[in-house]
């Protein structure tokens, strides 16, 4: 098993909680893991990415080679496109469609969607809307993770357990919301891939 994943978003959007959830599940499965994060300046509203690598064999590089990623998981549509040079020929693009606009020259949203839809393999969904239905807009991250879950080659149960562990300290209610969010994202992906 080997999965190389680029997580993308804008500083402050919390892509690291997606990484933490997958990471927890991966450790439970006894997989090797490397995860390169961005700290410092870019966290202030700039574009951020994390390279998440899982494998049943030892991993050499902390960075994913360009053209080799199995997946881009993005919580922001324009940001999902920034990392296309990393995506492998068979790779999937999983992205939120809800833009995060903090720059004056944000491109035309329709054109962004056209670019996403021109990809051979993609899932694009309004994660915030589904998260809202699940009980909190803040769980949009878990909707996105759910949408990526069919392509992770990981028992879905393991991801659910990871959420139980990570959000467990913050109360049952939050666990339920995030589980619901995760499942709704997964359902969307299964129906729309």
């Amino acid at each position, binding site marked *: 098993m080997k999965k190389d994943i680029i997580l993308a978003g804008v500083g402050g959007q919390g892509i690291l909680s997606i990484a933490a959830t997958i990471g927890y599940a991966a450790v439970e499965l006894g997989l090797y893991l490397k995860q390169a*994060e961005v700290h410092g300046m870019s966290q202030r509203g700039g574009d951020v990415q994390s390279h998440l690598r899982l494998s049943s064999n030892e991993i050499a590089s902390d960075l994913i080679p360009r053209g080799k990623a199995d997946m881009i998981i993005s919580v922001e549509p324009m940001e999902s496109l920034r990392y296309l040079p990393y995506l492998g020929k068979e790779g999937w693009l999983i992205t939120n469609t809800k833009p995060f606009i903090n720059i004056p020259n944000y491109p035309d949203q329709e054109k962004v969607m056209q670019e996403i839809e021109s990809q051979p393999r993609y899932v694009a969904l309004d994660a915030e809307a589904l998260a809202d239905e699940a009980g909190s807009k803040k769980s949009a991250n878990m909707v996105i993770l759910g949408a990526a879950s069919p392509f992770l080659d990981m028992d879905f149960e393991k991801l659910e357990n990871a959420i139980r562990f990570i959000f467990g300290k913050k109360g049952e209610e939050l666990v339920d919301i995030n589980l619901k969010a995760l499942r709704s994202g997964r359902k969307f992906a299964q129906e729309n891939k």
Partner: protein
Amino acid sequence: MQKSLLLGDEAIAQAGIDAGMSGIYAYPGTPSTEITEYVRVSKEAKEKGVVASWCANEKTAAEAALGMSYAGKRTMTCMKHVGLNVAADVFLNASITGANGGILFVVADDPSMHSSQNEQDSRYYGKFAMIPVLEPSNQQEAYDMVHLGFELSEKYKIPVMLRITTRLAHSRSGVARKQSRKQNQFKLPENLRQFVLLPAIARKQYQGLLNNQPLFQKESEESEYNTYTPGEDKTLGIVACGLAYNYLMENYPDRKVPHPVVKICQYPLPHKHIDKLYEECEKILVLEEGYPIVEEMIKGFMDHGKPVTGRLDGAIPRAGELNPNIVGKALGFPQEKLAEIPSLVASRPPSLCKGCSHIDSFLGLNEALESYGQGRVFSDIGCYTLSALPPYESINTCVDMGASITMAKGAADAGMKPSVAVIGDSTFTHSGITGLLDAVNEKTNITVFILDNSTTGMTGGQPSSAYGKIEDICRGIGVEEEHIRVLKPLRKHHEENTRIMKEELEYDGVSVIIPRRECIQTLNKRMRQKFKEKEKAKAANKNA
């Protein structure tokens, strides 16, 4: 033992705790911040009484660490690469005094300048100081090398440098821990003159350092971290230093490199392996993260030997960090055509947070300076440096910590009027006070803005040494009371604030304006914490 998932920085911190470190001293700086941060929140460290201090700057931090070493205990001082410039005085002289308890200088370089103003390579400093340098290639080695570093430091009574780069500092992986070791007992140096660098003693001490060079060399030759792996194809031999080794291996999915490979993680550069490689191969490729220091050494000034290739001849770009693709290209692998970034993707630079107090300060300053024209604002290093970008475009310099006030002074001396300095509260106590004193002593006509958000913001909100002390410091070094003006940077005070700024810009002498409002990030964090505690208390009441 189960492995812990740790950032490179965290692995170093945990290793320090496990290796019996008694104190860690630092000033925050990306990508080194998380080392000290980790120790400060570690329960284990607290139970063991490990001192974990954010200091005024890297120099004070390193000196405190040297003091702890003097007292016989193990200690670490951590900084980003440019932080070592600030601590360079103590760093280079500590190689002459030597150590008593083990002391590590942990320095995190930032090739590609993700969060820095240059990409200087700290290995040059290590060579300059003539001390052993350790350069781990992964998180586990980072953990293990802290132990090795302390052992070397105590064996030879010498400071040791642990050099990492951004990718290792901020990448997470599984790390197996060693058994915990007790802290050292308090113990004075055997020779009470060891640390007295009077010329006569310093000469002796320096001779000792020189005498130790062959021993450091021997340690490198025998180090388990410097390895030679044979390969059949001897048309090329590869030297891979630290993290570069991973990028090399990434290019061979079965991890079998057809060429002989020397992996370097400990300096001085070991002769044994490299001589062998040079003898048997037609050409040498050097892979290193940072400047081409090893490449230069192997190539030599005369460059009469076999071809040595790397950053110097363009096989690898001269600037920027490595990655698997760059290394693959240097190895001659065919490069697949990659998808391009669609042209509509706009760059998204970092920016000041919504609600940040600096925004109000810069809107005021821009308006106050309007009649004088642009190009008069010297600034410094922190979140407020982002005001160089649109929409503010307020500042004209960012050079090194503290340089705003001193450069403003020099420009004022050259006749610039008004001459403005903008510096953050934490940067002010880091390196700004002495410059302000220079200006006061000569009654230079400058206007200094000390933007007080009561934290070290850019690195994630560490406590600021300046907290609650700024006016007193200014008064203490002689700034006139009536020209110390404290403002509250809020939109509703914009007109009044701008008026005060204009007044002080016109004043012929040193004035200090202190716009003070807490960082929006630390404020939010505090509010969340408060809310949590309230909820907890509520739940407790309910249960009772």
